[in-house]
């Protein structure tokens, strides 16, 4: 039986980032992953590091996390493809353009650079866009990266500091004082952190996490050039509708010269198959913003399962009924962005010290209070 200060269950980007932070603090860590590091939902996402301002808690966590990524960037291998391309939120009509000013104020209040582009400035920045857009919100310090290798970099750094990396190692049970592996071995640990994304409820029944499926398509190299991550402002409407499947235009330039296209959302769908009808809707939507898209060569289409919580915020902190268990899961579509901040928040709580941002909005107690479920947000 091996003993660790902390066993992290789940080697996605969140678990790997936490292993990196804790091992740097001298905590003895084991990172246990059922398959390979960074190859689950982590490998399915776009890798868009994006400050989002749907609510104050989301903005605080995403803005801080994007800033942490920026600090980490110079130390990341080139293959992680960190690219501070910024985000352009595209306004299709005057109503959306009106929302831009309010967003700029929000972002600036949170210390995030943001600027308004009028139509002329937008087309100067992105000539490939379809005519008719009225402007955009530019968030220049947003970035993109290649998530699987970012996760792997974190895990290997932790390993270099003495953390134990266990891949191909499914976990059967979490219990006070240790983790039982599928092969029967027990890893003794003072603290256990569950960072298993969509699989988290399998190991901790009752967690309010459900899969929200998404589709992505990547083109061959040599796609038309876009310079920013491009997202329609309408994305905000579609991303937060909780009923039914939705699509929104979301396009990302890769440093490989490929174009990565999204997005779709299917709440409650845990299947892996490509949904041809939804893909059709997604591509039709994308073609409205990028004319000529239909002629580009698609290389691959895939799906991924976002671990969604009812209020769109992750679960970061102690399980209210199981003091030995910590949660770092439920990041929905923002796990890559907020991996850095989430890791710090959980590490700070574990080590009993204050964080840069208030950790309370992400507390699992908002759903798992011993006095029964409650809704923490109005």
């Amino acid at each position, binding site marked *: 039986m091996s003993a660790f200060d902390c066993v992290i269950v789940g080697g996605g980007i969140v678990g790997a980032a936490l292993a990196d932070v804790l091992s740097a603090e001298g905590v003895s860590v084991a990172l246990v992953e059922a*398959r*390979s590091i*960074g*190859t689950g939902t982590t*490998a399915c996402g776009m890798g868009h590091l994006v400050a989002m301002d749907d609510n104050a808690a989301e903005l605080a966590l995403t803005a801080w996390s994007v800033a942490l990524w920026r600090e980490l960037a110079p130390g990341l291998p080139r293959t992680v493809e960190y690219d501070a391309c910024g985000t352009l939120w595209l306004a299709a009509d005057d109503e959306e353009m009106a929302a831009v000013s309010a967003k700029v104020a929000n972002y600036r209040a949170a210390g995030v650079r943001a600027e308004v582009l009028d139509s002329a400035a937008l087309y100067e920045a992105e000539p490939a866009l379809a005519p008719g857009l009225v402007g955009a919100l530019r968030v220049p310090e947003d970035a993109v990266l290649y998530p*699987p*290798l970012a996760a*792997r970099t974190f895990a290997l750094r932790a390993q270099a500091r003495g953390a134990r990396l266990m*891949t*191909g190692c499914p976990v059967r049970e979490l219990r006070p004082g240790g983790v039982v592996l599928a092969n029967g071995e027990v890893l003794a640990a003072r603290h256990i952190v569950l960072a298993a994304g969509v699989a988290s409820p399998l190991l901790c029944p009752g967690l309010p996490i459900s899969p929200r499926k998404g589709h992505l*398509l990547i*083109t*061959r190299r040599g796609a038309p050039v876009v310079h920013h991550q491009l997202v329609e402002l309408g994305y905000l409407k579609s991303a937060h509708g909780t009923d039914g499947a939705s699509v929104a235009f979301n396009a990302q330039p890769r440093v490989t010269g490929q174009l990565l296209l999204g997005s779709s959302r299917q709440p409650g769908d845990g299947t*892996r198959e*490509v949904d*041809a*009808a939804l*893909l*059709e809707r997604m*591509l*039709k939507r994308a*073609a409205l913003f990028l004319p000529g*898209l*239909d*002629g*580009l*060569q*698609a*290389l*691959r*289409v*895939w799906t991924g399962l976002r671990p969604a919580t009812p209020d769109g915020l992750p679960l970061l902190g102690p399980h209210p009924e199981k003091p030995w268990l910590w949660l770092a899961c439920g990041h929905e579509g923002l796990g890559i962005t907020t991996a850095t901040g989430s890791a710090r928040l959980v590490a700070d709580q574990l080590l009993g010290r204050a964080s840069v941002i208030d950790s309370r909005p992400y507390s699992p107690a908002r759903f798992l209070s011993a006095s029964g479920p409650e809704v923490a947000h109005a």
Partner: protein
Amino acid sequence: MREVCDLVVVGAGPGGLAAACRAAEAGLDVLVLDAQPEPGGQVWRGEARKGSNRLARRWLTRFSASGARFRPGARVIAAPEPGVLLVEEASSSFAVRYGRAVLATGARERFLPFPGWTLPGVLGVSGLQVLVKDGLPIEGKRVVLAGTGPLLLVAAATIHAHGGEVLYIAEQASAASHWGFALQLWRQPAKLLQGALMSAKLVSVPTSTDAWVTAAEGERRLEAVRLSVRGREEHLHCDYLGAAYGLVPNLEVARLLGCETSAGAVVVDDRLETRVPKVHAVGELLGIGGVDQALVTGALAGLVAAEQPVPLELERSWHRVRTFAAQLARHDAPRAELLRLAAPDTLLCRCEDVPMSALEGCQNLREARLYARLGMGACQGRTCGTAAQALFGWSGEDVRPPCLPARIGSLRLPSDVSSTHTRES
């Protein structure tokens, strides 16, 4: 645009042609799709114009008269729902709604990496043969062929006939395995005759078993090859090298449709039906077996699809060709030395320029893909995935649409095919 048919046949090689003929002659509405401009597949490539191969001519004539419809230049890219295929052509795409399907997608060459294998002038064995048939000027050029099995001799005969100078034929199989295989050909008189005819033309070409290429050399293109011949090293200056180690089935469309595969072949029952109802697999998909297997299994699947009785003679033929296929598999299995030729800087994936050294620490194909970009390029791992399977025992991942790079517009379902259509029972 939309096509509707009783039977869709994917691939117009011998297997697909035999299936289409039998089914169409029995009255089914048959649609045959093939990526090439003419029917015949790789093995009968160009025969639709030349007609020099009697067997090919007979089948191609029968096919034209069968009533089956043929769509050339048509590549299956997706299967959006049961009973529907999305197909891309040069400048358009269409959907096919089918009652049954026969998959006859044939095989491709197995490439194994060795230093210099990506130099211009280095091709596959059949790949070089195809280029020569299609007009690559080979007259007076010096050619070395390395690989395994009957394809080596077939390619050598073609190159010889077009004026190329075949310097050497290196057969990787051991002498015992090779001659054992040759003796087995007595049970296959037609094959023995083919072999003898080819050998007679090539009698002056040095040939060795237990021989393989260890490296291809050259500055900007191939200039010379190094061979291991029964433990000795040979060095030959040449213009072209054809090097590939047997064939592997093209399983992508079958796997896209959800057909179960085992040991590199599609699993079928005695009606050649896959685990997916109403989808049949024939020819090389059942394990490499050549033209005879393709014709026999194609005919069988065509009859089954048309709900016709299967003659006892055809059943017997099937058992015979399966025996041959099993022998071929044993003969063609790449020897261990071939799996150790690549150097750290040898590319395994040439689409994404992934050298062997980049795979250090990777435990499986998913890690190799995600950490090192192996197989993430335009060929979607068709070449390197097969090599990685041989080298490391890594098996393939799920096949997702598009199973070939395709225009984004082709992935968009035509408006007259929606998932709300009533599916045929």
